[in-house]
């Protein structure tokens, strides 16, 4: 056992507070709409019920399913009142997507909380909204290595990749359940029994494999491997723009050649061109222009040009 895992052990011990044994255990499951957040939390809730606990599982439907952020609170124990987990109170945070995991980190118990994450990145169009030269992605910048510096119990794996290697990328959620199973004291057989009830009958075998794969991965876990071991993705956060030397200046419109066809106005993705009172194309919102050169390319009369700066 190396130094880092030793540290995990010590900090995890702090989780057991003798005065709060009656306090429910809080597991927060998060991800993007359509990933299976509700399925994962339903499996956990069913298992907790089977183990004789009172359990509450709370989610919000509606707008969230349209590619938005989705979360599900699972609380179990002898007596559970509130259906939701307060900030800083989650014993375990299970993230099906990297940036979603980061969003909910403030809900994790400081010091002792366990963060289990799929390093898979689902980049929303919103993060790619800037068409300008040299634009930087709006996707979360923090890398797995940086987060494991902040959180002592950080278990991040490329579950989709590992499940695909087993033969079905869709079993990634079960792999994460395998990882989660090591943080909660329920027999592995009971986990398998409950999971079997929730997955399609034909996929039970592969899901069982994925479950043990997830479990084994945590057992064998060694933070030192983070630097690029098998099955672990260490992607740089977001996309890093490569500096490009070519610089353009704003479109120049040769009025005499413009025949008012309106093509540039209609196609400009930023809507910064319009026809003036003489029906001649004009750059009316130069501050919005991203130098994409669509107008130059589409003008049938070569009336628009973007030139090199030098």
């Amino acid at each position, binding site marked *: 056992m190396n130094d880092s*895992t030793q540290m*995990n*052990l010590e900090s*995890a*011990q702090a989780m*057991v507070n003798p005065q709060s*044994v*009656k306090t429910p*255990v809080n597991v927060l499951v998060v991800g993007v709409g359509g990933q299976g957040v509700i399925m994962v939390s339903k499996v956990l*809730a069913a298992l907790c*019920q089977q*183990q*004789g*606990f*009172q*359990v*509450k*599982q*709370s*989610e919000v*439907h*509606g*707008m*969230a*399913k*349209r*590619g*938005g*952020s989705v979360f599900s609170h699972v609380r179990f*124990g002898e007596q559970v*009142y*509130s*259906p939701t987990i307060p900030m800083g109170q989650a014993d375990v945070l299970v993230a099906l997507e990297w*940036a979603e995991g*980061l*969003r909910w*980190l403030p809900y*994790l118990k400081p010091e002792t909380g366990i963060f289990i994450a799929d390093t898979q990145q689902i980049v*929303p*169009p*919103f*993060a*790619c*909204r800037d068409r*300008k*030269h040299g634009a930087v992605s709006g*996707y*979360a910048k923090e890398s797995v290595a940086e987060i494991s510096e*902040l959180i002592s*119990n950080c278990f991040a794996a490329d579950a989709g990749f590992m499940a695909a290697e087993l033969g079905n990328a869709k079993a990634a959620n079960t792999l994460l359940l395998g990882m989660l199973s*090591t*943080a909660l004291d329920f027999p592995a057989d009971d986990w398998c029994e409950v999971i079997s009830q929730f997955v399609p009958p034909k996929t039970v075998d592969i899901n069982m494999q994925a479950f043990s794969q997830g479990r084994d991965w945590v057992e064998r876990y060694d933070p030192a491997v983070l630097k690029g071991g098998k099955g672990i993705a260490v992607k740089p956060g977001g996309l890093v*723009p*490569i500096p*490009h030397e070519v610089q353009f200046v704003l479109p120049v419109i040769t009025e005499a050649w413009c025949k008012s066809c309106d093509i540039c106005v209609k*196609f400009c*993705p930023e809507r910064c061109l319009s026809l003036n009172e003489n029906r001649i194309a004009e750059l009316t919102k130069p501050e919005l222009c991203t130098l*994409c*050169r*669509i107008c130059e390319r589409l003008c049938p009369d070569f009336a628009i040009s973007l030139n090199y700066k030098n």
Partner: protein
Amino acid sequence: MSQLAELNKPLSQTAKASGQAKQQPLRPMMGNEAIARGAWEAGVKVAAAYPGTPSTEIMENLAKYPAADLHAEWSTNEKVALDVAIGGSFAGVRSLTSMKHVGLNVASDSLMSQTYIGVNGALVLVVCDDPGIHSSQNEQDTRIFGQLAMTPVLEPTDAQEALDFTKLAFDLSEQFDTPVIVRSTTRLSHTRSLVKTGERVEVRGKGFLEEPKKNVMIPGHARLRHRALMERERLLQEYFENSDLIRWEPGSDEVGIITLSTAYTYVKEVFPEASVLKLGVSYPLPEAKIREFCSSVKRIIVVEELEPVIENQLKVMGHRVEGKSLFPREGEFSTEVVRDGFEAAGLLPPTPKFELIDIEPMARPPLLCAGCPHTTAYMALRALNSRVSGDIGCYTLAAVEPLKAIDTSVAMGSSIANATGIALAGTETRPVVATIGDSTFLHAGIPPLINAVYNNANITVVLLDNHITAMTGGQDHPGTGRNLRGQETHKIDYEALIKAIGVQWIKKIDSYNMGSVYQSLREATLYKGVAVLILDRPCVLDPVKLKGPAFQVKAESCTGCQACMNLGCPAISWSDELYEGHHKVKIDEAACIGCSLCAQVGSTNCIQPVDAGLLQ
């Protein structure tokens, strides 16, 4: 056993040992599922609703019970649904309608009269509020409606109570000759907890009760009924004095907390030692019981989500209570919010501040799906520089970047009449357009369309027909040709309907043809008078999830113009390559459904089907 499990062992095992002793044959149920179960057990015979988050699953679950047990339907709107349920009650059988909070606004006209009439067979309204506005246009408090309609309002806390209270509501309705409101909230409706279920009790229909003085609300009858209502309020109040719905949980006499609904769970969580009076009803209140409770403690605090409904009633009774001075009047409650309130009251020590991990979360707003047929209309409307009145549905998302093409959105069916007003005001220089979905059109869009024709407004109406009620998760409606139980039924012919209304310019085209949508909208907006353009394409998610051959970006042709990004398609994002410093794009093949819209807007023939050997 893993290291972590070993360490957690004491925690889990203690909880398990005490938990197992109580093991019962319980079923995990969402609040809405439990409400449906309660209604079924109570012997409901007629159930009707229009879908609306967070209430939709109530009717969906009722439809899972045999057709021989009850008639369950999607109605065209909430007023129709309530009127159908009222009909069931007139006919002498137990009836139910469910809706979201704003649905009660639509149904309120009937409720205000029906409360005078009372019931023959029981009449229960389940109304789900949305504190925190997770998926609504406002966060109005239904309990005030209960007071206005002098209709009792029951407020369950968890799924078990949701089942029990719904069942009880049917009995109370018949016992006191009144409609009864069961009020839920998003948190209750969408939280799963363990429930003990019972069996269905068949209640024999009473048959129609011929009593015109009660059933026909003309002024002479209504005046007498109003008097009966006040007597009913008194009797209900008396009943609640000794009802199980009111639970006194004794504790310290320093402070007494009066709470209800999900707020109760947060109170128990943060302040377990306090004296609590848990109310299962918010109108009418058991005054004597409350007086007794208030005199037993030194300080009284009311903890309730949204409006100070209980607090104000208590103040009228003459009690010195605190409530909204400590807890917010807007938003959803949580353990943190309730704790903050008690801290502000000086009753709990300040929470020890811990260092939160400081990471700025990435924005991930909800989006129209990859291949959503609504996208083209808004691309074209933006290019046409139109003034657009929107409506309620998924397409409200077109109000934000990148489509950003909707100027107003008020309530179900408002778009057409809003556009009529904008056009008739005579000040708008842009083309005035209303956009409305198929289900919303049938809900409340037909009278305003008649009105627009009748008053000769110069507007264009875009009927976004995606053949389903998409926003709430894919429910059938009269335009789909199927009912709630999936049976074939008459299918509305929109063109014939709109023609009969008197619209002269009607055209129906494929939503996926970007050029045709643009051209047709240009024609429609140039037409003087009411023009209706029907954009026809099924929703990509419901009733079946569509998946066609995916498209890909030819990296060598991509010039990083990102014109395709204007669609806001979740399948398109940046690739790792650059073109002259601009990010090239890529398409996630798993997410792409092959609608081809990005290929239609691309400027360099850069987007092609993955399997495009023939096209090259």
